[in-house]
């Protein structure tokens, strides 16, 4: 793709005390493109998500939005640009109900007063509530009493509500069942058709192969390769994740990865 990426990261560094969680990380996401970000546990994927969404800003590096450098210091900055995220640690409000969580920070108001009716109706109309058949007893139950899969659906609905240009999903299918995951992958394809750029973090290379256009590999906080999904074998991606150069090891590790799927 020769067009300017909607979101580009250049030389992102992030430290937690002595731990270098991210070092000189580069990443580009174009409109209508699904980029998968893969890497072993502790590779820095979630940290990168928090850099992009302003939850944990970078120490160094440049973030470009449509080719222009921007500052993302707080969640609000990312939201204004049009970046929405679903975090691995879901970040929902336990005591608010489903509607309250979906609309948190974007409440619909009529003459300065919360319009609960409008918000409840829109929550019911959200595509996920329908297609994922999450069977929430009522959109008025506090999320504290929901199952992990239901919470995940609420978190994803919440991210979609803001009509983002870039959607970041940190292991979104981890708590979903087989059928829900299938629906979810369909949803990602529809988002791509709408021109939304998606950054999908997943441990499931099957999912990645199914929906992603590009795969970016992160290893020990550094970029470890970019691949085109169509022309790259799963083994190549796995060896890049594990950092194995030796063939035998690559194969054994690849085998181990596939066994996990």
């Amino acid at each position: 793709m020769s067009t300017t990426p909607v979101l580009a990261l250049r030389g992102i560094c992030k430290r937690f005390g002595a731990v270098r969680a991210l070092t000189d990380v580069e990443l580009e996401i174009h409109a209508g493109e699904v980029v998968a970000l893969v890497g072993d546990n502790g590779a820095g994927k979630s940290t990168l998500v928090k850099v992009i969404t302003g939850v944990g800003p970078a120490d160094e590096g440049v973030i470009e939005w449509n080719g222009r450098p921007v500052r993302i210091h707080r969640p609000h900055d990312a939201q204004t640009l049009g970046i929405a995220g679903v975090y691995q640690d879901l970040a929902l409000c336990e005591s608010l109900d489903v509607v309250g969580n979906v609309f948190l920070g974007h409440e619909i108001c009529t003459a300065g007063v919360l319009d609960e009716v409008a918000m409840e109706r829109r929550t019911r109309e959200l595509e996920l509530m329908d297609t994922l058949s999450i069977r929430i007893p009522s959109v008025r139950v506090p999320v504290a009493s929901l199952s992990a899969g239901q919470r995940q659906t609420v978190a994803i609905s919440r991210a979609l509500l803001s009509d983002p240009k870039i959607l970041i999903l940190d292991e979104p299918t981890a708590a979903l069942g087989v059928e829900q995951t299938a629906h979810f992958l369909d949803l990602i394809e529809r988002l791509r058709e709408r021109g939304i750029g998606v950054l999908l973090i997943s441990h499931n290379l099957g999912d990645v192969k199914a929906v992603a256009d590009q795969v970016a590999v992160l290893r020990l906080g550094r970029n470890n390769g970019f691949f085109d999904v169509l022309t790259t074998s799963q083994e190549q991606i796995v060896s890049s994740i594990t950092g194995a150069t030796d063939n035998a090891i690559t194969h054994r590790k690849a085998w181990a990865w596939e066994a996990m799927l």
Partner: protein
Amino acid sequence: MNKSEASDLNTTRAGGGTARAGPAADRRQSAEGEQGFRGYVSEITRKLRSGELGALPGVFSVVVIWTVFQILDHQFLSPRNLSNLSVDIVGTGLIAVGIVFVLLLGEIDLSVGSVSGLSAAVFAVFNVNNGVPEWLAVIAAVLVGAAIGAVQGFFFATIGVPAFVVTLAGLLAWNGLMLHVLGASGTINLRPQGLVYGLTNHYFHNTAAAYGLAALGTVAFFVTSYHDARRRRAAEVLARPLTEIAMRTGAVAVIAFAVAYVLNQFEGLPLALLIFLAVVVGLDFVLRRTKYGRKIFSIGGGVEATRRAGINVAWVRVSVFAVSGTLAALGGLFLASRVASVGQTAGSSILMINSIAAAVIGGVSLFGGRGRPWSALLGMLVIQSIASGMLLLGIQTTVQYMITGGVLLAAVVLDSLSRHSQKSHGRA
């Protein structure tokens, strides 16, 4: 908007299409089923089962306490005693409303007693000792409360000192400052017939006042519930059935007119009660119907989630502590008005303990995110009823403290149990 896309999906992906149509259709059906009366009943049972008891324990306590004291002493439910009760709850009740705000954040403010004493002292010194006009002295006293709250909130929200410690330091410091402000004289008597004196001593003797307020409250309750239900039905979301609304309105009417009748048997509608009700209704609206209120609830339910939603958590926290300080100052003026003076015992720790106890007994969760300003009124009714009954029976305050302590413990146990059951409910 996405219904068409969803059905699109079912046809293009022939493989899973039919299999997926099932649950989606199911889901729609259950959504419709929710709207009937049955759905409403199941909603209530779900709430009770998952431990959202709300005001029930408080109401139950009031009924039990009133019954017991009425049996022990027939003066207890006399118009005179009940009217006095309705004025006695106001001072501490206002402070308790501030505590409700802080508890909703999942925090605590131990300084409210001292702040109320200091504010009352500031008022008395300005007005009585220095001849500052009364309205100006009132504004100064309230501003002192608000400023102290904001400062404490600042230390907590931006520097990260636990609220418990900041306000504990405040409890000590502001009490010391109050004693300093009161000076050698110790006690300052308020000017009789003044504005502040009238706060708890003025009654609307005309019976139309109390009845009018009862009627206004009932009509307002009905109109808002009815309007809300009609909008909900139009939008096809879960709505209260009309019979429900009628029953609730009936209950509100019975309580409101009974209270008005009793008050009119004595001196009429007390100004203090009117102000207290206005504050409770107003702040209840702010908490449940505005974006600001929603932010307070969401911080209580998850600070990190609120921060990630792009909300300025620090600002909300500072403002809530300022609200708490403001209400503490207001409460202090009412308490001073009740005894017509400000003395060295003003703003004692008992005040702080009672106001926190009132909020918790009234149904506010100590863990944040659950409760309403009405809880302050209900909790104060419990506490003040115990105090008033004991006074009638000539029992020492020591026993009163022990009983109030027991009720508080029971309330906290209920709160913890309900939180526990809410966590385990449906998550297994």
